[in-house]
C-alpha cells in the first residue's frame, strides 16, 4: 500500500523529502559561507524575490500538469509593467483602474495564447515563444513611443506601503503568495476541476473519451496563467517602483527551473503544488545565496542554467531506472 501511495502521480513522497533535504543543505551552506545570508534584511529580500517567481510558478503548475506550457509570461510582465507605469505616471489615471487594466490585459493575452493553441492545435512552446517575442517588442515600442525610454517610474504611496508593510512580521506580498498557494493547492487536490486537470495530463485521449472538453479546460488554464502573470506585473511594479521593458526578461529561467525542480514533467500528468513551492524555495535560495556571496550576476545565471540541466537529468535518470525494474 505504501509503495502505491509513493508512486502516485509520478511524484513520489520520497521526492519531497529529497528536495527538502537539498533545500536545507543549501540553506545551511550559504548561512555558513556568509553570516549576512541569514540576516533579517536578507531574509526579507529573499522572500520578496520568491514572491514573483512563486506566483508565476504556481500559475504554471496546473497548466503544465495538463500538458500545457507558456514561456511568454516574462515578456508579458515587461509590457504590462510599461503600460501600467505610463497609464499612472504619464496619463494620471487612477491607480486601481491602472492595476485592474494591467491584470485584465495579462489575462486576455493568456486567453489569446489558449485560443490559438487549442483552435489550431499548435505546439505550446512554439506559439508562446512567438508571443514572447511579440510582447517583448511591443514593450519596447510602447515605452519608446510614449516615454522615449525603456524605464518609467511608477511611485505610489499605496504600492509602497503594500510592498513594505508586514502583518505579523510577514510582508504583504508574501501573504499574497501564501494565499495563492492555498488556493492552488485546494483547487488541484480537493476539487473536481483539479482531478480533471490531472486526468488530462495523465492521458488526454482517455480524458476526452471520458467526456472531458479538453480544449475548454486548456483555454481556461492559459487564461489563468495570464491572470497569474498580471498579478506578477502588479507585484513587480510594487516591489521596484518602475515599469520597465526588460522587467521580465530574466524571469523564465528561474521560474521554469523551479517548476521542473518541483517535479512537474514536461510530458504532463505529474506535479504538485508542494513540489513547486519547494522548487521555488530552492531556486530563490541559490540565487540569493550567490548574490550575498557577491558572485557576479552573469555567474549566477550560469549556476541557474547548470542547476536546471542537472535537475532534469536527475529526474530522467530516475525515471529510466524505474522503467527498467
Amino acid at each position, binding site marked *: *500500500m505504501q509503495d*502505491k*501511495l509513493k*508512486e*502516485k*502521480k*509520478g511524484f513520489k513522497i520520497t521526492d519531497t523529502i529529497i528536495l527538502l533535504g537539498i533545500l536545507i543543505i543549501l540553506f545551511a551552506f550559504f548561512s555558513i559561507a556568509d553570516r549576512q545570508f541569514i540576516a533579517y534584511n536578507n531574509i526579507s529580500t529573499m522572500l520578496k524575490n520568491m514572491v514573483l517567481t512563486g506566483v508565476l510558478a504556481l500559475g504554471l503548475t496546473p497548466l503544465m500538469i495538463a500538458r500545457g506550457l507558456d514561456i511568454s509570461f516574462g515578456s508579458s510582465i515587461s509590457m504590462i509593467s510599461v503600460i501600467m507605469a505610463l497609464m499612472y505616471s504619464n496619463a494620471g489615471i487612477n491607480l486601481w483602474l491602472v492595476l485592474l487594466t494591467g491584470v485584465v490585459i495579462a489575462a486576455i493575452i493568456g486567453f489569446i495564447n489558449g485560443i490559438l493553441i487549442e483552435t489550431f492545435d499548435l505546439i505550446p512552446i512554439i506559439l508562446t515563444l512567438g508571443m514572447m517575442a511579440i510582447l517583448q517588442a511591443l514593450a519596447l515600442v510602447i515605452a519608446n513611443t510614449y516615454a522615449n525610454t525603456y524605464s518609467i517610474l511608477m511611485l505610489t504611496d499605496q504600492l509602497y506601503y503594500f510592498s513594505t508593510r508586514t502583518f505579523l512580521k510577514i510582508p504583504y506580498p508574501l501573504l499574497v503568495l501564501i494565499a495563492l498557494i492555498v488556493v492552488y493547492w485546494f483547487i488541484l487536490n*480537493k*476539487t*473536481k*476541476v*483539479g*482531478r*480533471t486537470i*490531472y*486526468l488530462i495530463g*495523465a*492521458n488526454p*485521449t*482517455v*480524458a*476526452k*473519451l*471520458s*467526456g*472531458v*472538453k479538453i480544449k475548454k479546460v486548456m483555454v481556461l488554464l492559459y487564461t489563468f496563467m495570464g491572470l497569474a502573470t498580471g498579478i506578477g506585473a502588479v507585484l513587480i511594479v510594487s516591489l521596484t517602483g518602475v515599469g520597465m521593458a526588460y522587467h521580465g526578461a530574466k524571469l523564465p529561467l528561474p521560474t521554469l527551473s523551479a517548476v521542473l525542480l518541483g517535479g512537474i514533467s514536461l510530458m504532463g*500528468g*505529474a506535479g504538485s503544488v508542494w513540489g513547486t513551492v519547494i522548487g521555488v524555495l530552492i531556486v530563490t535560495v541559490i540565487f540569493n545565496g550567490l548574490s550575498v556571496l557577491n558572485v557576479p550576476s552573469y555567474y549566477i545565471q550560469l549556476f541557474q542554467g547548470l542547476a536546471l540541466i542537472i535537475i532534469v537529468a536527475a529526474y530522467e535518470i530516475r525515471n529510466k531506472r524505474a522503467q527498467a525494474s
Partner: protein
Amino acid sequence: MPANNNTILKMESITKHFPGVKALDDVSIELKKGEILGLLGENGAGKSTLIKILSGAYSLEEGSIYIDSQKFDFKHPHESLEAGIRVIYQELTSFEPLTVAENIFAGETIRGKLGLISWRKLGRMAKEILNRLGSNIRPFELMENLNVAGKQMVEIAKAIHGEVKVLVMDEPTSALDEKDVAALYKVIRKLRDEGVAIIYITHRMEEIFDITDRVVVLRDGKKVGDKKIKDTTKSELVSMIVGKKLSEQYPKMDIEKGKVIFEVKDLSYLNKVKDVSFYLKEGEIVAFFGLLGAGTHNLFSVLFGDKKATSGDIFIEGKKINITHPNIAKAAGMGYVPLDRKEEGVALVMDIKENITSSNIENLGRSFVLDRKIERKHSQKWFDKLNIKAPGLDTITNSLSGGNQQKVVVAKWLERDSKILLMNEPTRGIDVGSKAEIYRIAEDLCEKGVGVLMVSSELPEIMAIADRVYVMKDGRISGEFNVKDTSQEELMHMASA
C-alpha cells in the same frame, strides 16, 4: 523430422519469486527444432514471466536454460538475442516515421564499401528477408503507411534476421483479421520448415488447433498440461487452463428485448463509413463484424463523438442527437470501452479508483469539492462487483493485467449507469477467465434493459453472446443477421465477398 536429439531448447525446473508471489513453480519445458509449441494460460499464470526469463529480461532464480545443449544464464536481454532467442510482443513497437528497412535493421548500421551507410545494401538485405517471409512489402515503404498486419510482418522480419533458434510470438493475431491470420500461418510454417522452433502464445483456441504441434498449459505458476495437439480437445485444454468445463464458460441467457433505444440512419464519415443504418433494442447485444478496413472501428469512434460524422443522424430513444463530442454522447447515456485499453481506456499512471470515477467526476459530491469518500464508496462497489483482482483501490492501473484493466474501463461506464454501451473488441488479448466475466457483465446489463453494441473480430464470441450481428465491408453494412439463424461461415463470407 529426424528422430535423434533435436532438442533446441530446454528450460528445466524454473522457479521465480517476486515480492509476495511465486510466479513460476518448478516449470520445465522442452522444444525441438521445427516444432511449434503453444503456450496457454490465464493472465497471471506465468507465461510472460517464463518468456521474460528466456529472453533475459528477468534473471534466473532457480533452474537452468539449455539452448542447443549449451547452458546459459543471461545477464542481459542482448545475450539472449545473441543465443538465438527472439521475442515478438503483443504490443508492436516500431519507428513510425522511418521506413521498413530501417525498422528491420534498427540498431545496426549497414555499411557499404566506403564505410558509409549503404541504402542500396540495406534495401537489398531487407528485400531478402521480406521475400523469405513471402511478403511483398516494399523495403522503403514508410512504417506509418502500413496497416497492423504489415507492421507485424516487419516485426517478424526484424526478429528473424541473424541466427534465430527460438522465436516466441505473443498474441500475434490479436490485431489481425482472418485473411491476415492465414498469411501469418504461412509465414510461421515456412519458418518451421527452416528449422526454427516457435513458441506461440495465444488465448484463441481455434489457433492452437490450427497451428501448433504441441501445447503446454500453465496455471498459477505451475505446468498443468503438456500434450500433443492431436491427443487433446478444446474442452480439455480449457479445463486445464481454468479448472472449469467449457459449458460453464459462455452461458447464453434468454433475455427479453425491449423497445428500440438507439437508431442510426445513413451515417457517413469521410470514405471510411458509408450510409450506415442500424438499430439497437433494450436488452440486446448487437455485434459488428468486419475485416480490417471494413469501417467498424471508425463507426464506433463516430458514434461516440470522437470523430464527427459527415452526414447522417443518430437517435437515442427516438430523439435526434447531434454527437459532436464524447461529452454529448456521455450525457445522452452512452458509454464506450475503446479499442486500445492502455492508450484510450485507462490512464495508466492513475489508480483504480481514479480511473473508475474518471467519467463521473462531476457527480463525486454536490459542490465543486471532490468528495473522496464518495469516490471510494463508488469505486469499491464496482471493484467488488466486477471481481477486479488487485491489492486495492489505490493500485496503479499500470500494474494490472489486461483483463483487469478492461474491467476497470467497463466499471467506468457502469458507474455512469450507461443505457447504451459501446464495446470495441472488448476481449482482445484477454485471458479466458476475464473474458467470461466480461460476457457475464454484458449479459447482466442486458437484463437491466441496457443495449450493448460490440465490435468483434472473433466469430465464436459473436456466435456465443450476440443476439444480432451486422457485417461491414468497405465502410458499408453488407448484411444483418440474427445470430441464431446464421453461421460463422456465412458471416465470414459476407465480410469478405
